[in-house]
């Protein structure tokens, strides 16, 4: 799911929607080591504690790494509570955990995993003070990829998205023109994912198309979910 395939790669700059992904908002106390461990156990993923960074169960940067190492492996669960039957499937489905705030993360996962992720995380975090909320229907992901991606975003985003200040693995909540977005650097091609609320998505997409018109931006068709 991370790679839309060779049809859109390496041919200028493209915009494609990644529809129907699972979006789960996670709130917990970052000083609660037990809570962090519970999430790690449940998802095979360390929540990023560094502000504006992303954690992913597999390398973000290079498809070559994936090719060399084979498909991404999830922690096998040694010493882990494995009584929950749903443990492995939701863990495998998580793509990224984005840092949104000191006590808030967004989990992005394969389509259809929302209910399962919420159940697993609530069970893992019980009875701690934590909140797990499925927001999948409330947002979508616009993927902007290609050599002109930064130039397109520069028309409406005040952040420095250059490779030094915003390398792959960086994310930030900001404004794209008049729409609030979570922008995440996925790889060095560069690829940016823009997570945008559903009612703002048509505006954001229209805005990107307009800004991209001077940069040869092409629209790509989303892969079937």
């Amino acid at each position: 799911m991370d790679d839309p395939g060779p049809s859109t790669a390496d041919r200028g700059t493209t915009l494609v929607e990644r529809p129907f992904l699972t979006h789960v908002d996670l709130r917990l106390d970052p000083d609660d080591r037990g809570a962090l461990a519970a999430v790690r156990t449940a998802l095979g993923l360390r929540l990023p504690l560094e502000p504006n960074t992303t954690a992913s169960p597999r390398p973000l940067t290079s498809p070559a790494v994936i090719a060399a190492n084979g498909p991404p492996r999830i922690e096998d669960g040694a010493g882990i509570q494995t009584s929950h039957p749903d443990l492995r499937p939701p863990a495998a489905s998580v793509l990224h955990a984005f840092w949104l705030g000191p006590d808030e993360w967004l989990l992005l996962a394969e389509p259809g995993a929302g209910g399962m992720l919420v159940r697993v995380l609530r069970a893992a975090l019980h009875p701690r003070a934590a909140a797990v909320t499925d927001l999948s229907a409330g947002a979508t992901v616009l993927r902007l990829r290609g050599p002109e991606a930064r130039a397109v975003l520069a028309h409406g985003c005040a952040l420095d998205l250059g490779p030094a200040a915003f390398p792959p693995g960086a994310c930030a909540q900001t404004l794209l023109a008049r729409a609030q977005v979570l922008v995440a650097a996925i790889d060095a091609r560069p690829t940016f994912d823009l997570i945008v609320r559903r009612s703002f998505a048509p505006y954001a997409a229209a805005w990107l198309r307009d800004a991209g018109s001077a940069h040869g931006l092409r629209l790509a068709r989303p892969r079937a979910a």
Partner: protein
Amino acid sequence: MSQPYRLPRGGRIDRGAPLQFTFDGRTIHGYQGDTLASALLANGAALIGRSFKYHRPRGIVAAGAEDPNAFVQLGRGARAAPNRLATVTPAAHGMQVRSVNAWPSLDYDVMSLLGLAAPFIPAGFYYKTLMWPRRLWPLYERVLRRAAGLGRAPSGPDPDRYDYVHARCDVLVVGAGPAGLAAARAAARRGARVILADEQPQPGGSLLASAERVDGVPGHAWAAAAAADLAASPRVTVLPDTTVFGLYQSNLALMVERRREQPGDAAGTERGARTWRVTPRRIVLASGAHERPLLCANNDLPGVMLASATAAYLHRYAAAPGSRAVFFTTNDTAYRAALDLAEAGVPVAAIADVRADPDGRLPAEARARGIQVLAAAAVRRVLGRRRVAAVELCSLDGSPRGVVECDLLGLAGGFAPALHLHAQAGGRTDWDPALAAFVPRRSNGVHPAGGAAGALGTAAALRQGAQAGASAAAAAGFTADAAPAPPGGGPELPSAQDAPDLGFQPYWVPPNALGRVKPQFVDLHEDVTLDDLRLTLREGFEAVEHVKRYTTLGMGPDQGKLANPLATGVLAELQGLHPAAVGAPRYRPAYTPVALGALAGRSVGALSDPLRATPMQAWHQAAGARFESVGQWRRPLAYPQRGETVHDAAARECLAVRRRVGLLDSSTLGKIEVNGPDAGEFLERVYVNTWKRLPPGRCRYGLMLGEDGMILDDGVTARLDERRYLTFTSTSGAAEVLAWLERWLQTEWPELRVYLTSVSEHWACLALAGPRSRETLAAAGTDIALDRQAFPHMTFRAGRVAGVRARVFRISFSGELSYEINVPADQALHVWETLLECGRPFGIAPYGTEAMHVLRAEKGYVIVGQETDGSVTPLDVGLRRMLSRRKDFLGKRSLSRPALLRADRKQLVGLRSDDPAQVVPEGAPLVDAPSRRRPLPMRGHVTSSYHSPALGRAIALALVSGGRASLGERLYAAAPDDRWIPVRSCLPIFYDPTGARLHV
């Protein structure tokens, strides 16, 4: 071609590319590389405009952005561009240029008669005269506006596309003169990312306007090569035609790039301007210096020009600004210009030098060339009608030195650094006595260099530029050690000539011995004279900011670039103060006029603001809905069928809900999940009523107050489970309420273990309302038991509706049996369509916000923002019973303030008009009795007013002083057409007062 003042050789123009444009209908010939001003001069057009106030003839004064006169109107129709400065606008073939402030023509301007009346239009004239009688002000304004005429606005939407772009860099260099180019090179060599912006189409700045050589080649050639080298570096962005017009805190720089139509542009190519919002780590300010004019009578006649400008037109454009010149100077720089003119074949009749003994190298050279040099002399008066014909010279002691015929007077009053950007960003300045000008103090990340730092001469500019570039790069973290190969190679510091010592002697106010000849203009654009400044001081306006406001000094579109530095010296001398004690008027952005379109950038039309829509938007559109805007949301107002007005449709939809069943898209409501062990405690603190004891599965209406006790928001909250609540907010208040709750949680109550998550966009909300809603919901298919006992009013159930996971709330905003069905937004359309399909046997109708408003008004339910306006308490709307006495909540203390308990506060009542068909206008004032007396005491105002289809009569809600205590009283509502509508107050509930229809 007819360019009598074009020199046969030289200039940075392309003689192989002739062009023509029209100026007030007259054909002007020029070449590629000309500005409008240089082409006009080459064609001998000295008179190019009329002044703002007195409509005096005016000509070109400067060769850059500092010119106060050369504002022209470009183009016509939708592409009309007012306030373009001819001195910086490149000439292009086919342009239509018009003068401003002239009617019926530039040569015979009726309003110039005003000049004869000048003695009666002193400083502060507007304040003194036109304020009285006040009722005539609209007339004055109309006449004044026509007389003023700062150009004409475009007549239609701008066909050009504008752009906006954010950029970052390590060093922003403002100006590509010798200092700026040297700075950009030095910074780029150290590895810094550099943006070099220059307002001219060609790099070089002062080098374009002189015959100087740099590194052994002509200055302009060196500049072009240096800029090309820089542009070839991947770390450097060179932006010609780009003006940095504003500098703000934290080095935020705004610049505008003028993108011109190029021959061969593909169709659809973006034109118009691009605004750059740049945040550099450091700024090198190499914006140069502006020459100061000098005072003498009629110093505004066309043909009076800055000495440096005469050289610029000569060297850069090969345009002779006159045929016989006189210079008036305070320093040696004018001699260079005079010698260059003479060399080019324009005779120089005399140089009047205020210094007693001008004996430098240049004066000696001038004398050797046979130019008459008058020491301790001044120009007393300029003679001529529409342009300079002669100048009257005299010694500083007043003795006449003759009248010299000429058509060009060059003024050399010394140079003032262009400190606009420095000062805008809050930079401090110091008075430099040698320059008699303010120079920038190093500060706040801005590194001045060259003319902007008070350095004169190319060698000093190059030296300072290189230093500033290096130090700016170092401050941004790039030291020489880290330097990779320099772009372009070559030595860091090119060789050039040092400037001669200026030998500057201030000359602000002409000595009394010269007599009070008039008028002597300080600000040419605003027609502010020396006498105006004298009068202003006499009237007690002494501070420079007061002088500015009283006289409008420096308030023109030229921002007083020439006037302000001169005014500082003049005001100091008139008051016997040190110029530093007078100071300079505050510099404000924008440095030069910026088109509004450039600031808007791409945010025009559909992209100006997001239009938010619910998942059912396409369905609403297909059903012919009429929409209304609620914040950024578009909501269906009503669904008119064939032949129906919106009003008809809303009435039909109301009846459908009251008699059968209706379906409303209320997805725009704000929804916040309140999650955590202390969620109940948190809600108790922010709502007036109690929450901890609300059992899971139940709902309650809540009221939220500000700290002032005023109603902030309202809505239903459901307890989802032991530790989770779902709070509904109003559509327009959603973001504000979430921010308000987070603020209290984060800053005041961090001990509460509560997390707030907005789920507004995840859950779509479908309100199914009406006596047959239960049957409709059952028909649509649900696993939730719907009977009255299993699912009573104000409860919540989770289950499936039409096959979709749903949360169903039995809450009502219409007063009917109602189910608010929340489903994930991406499945909402399916549920919506299924409900409508399954409701068809029961007579279902979709209804919009208009019907929703009527239905709730019939029940007396308030809408926050309609019945309330930030000054309404729960007591005022009759919700005292909701206020908990057992606990504390935000706003509680304020509610016990005596003023909020007064009996005469405006309180919510219902209104029935005597004529049931008479709908009172919303917002109408209410009075006890009609009267012609003014002011008439108001009892209150109408907040909501509708025709109620269910009741067959007009109903209204109103806020009336002491209204609750005097229900049934007679009031009169004022209609806009001066009619009085008799009404009677009542309890604010018109339909089903017992609520029997809710509990079925």
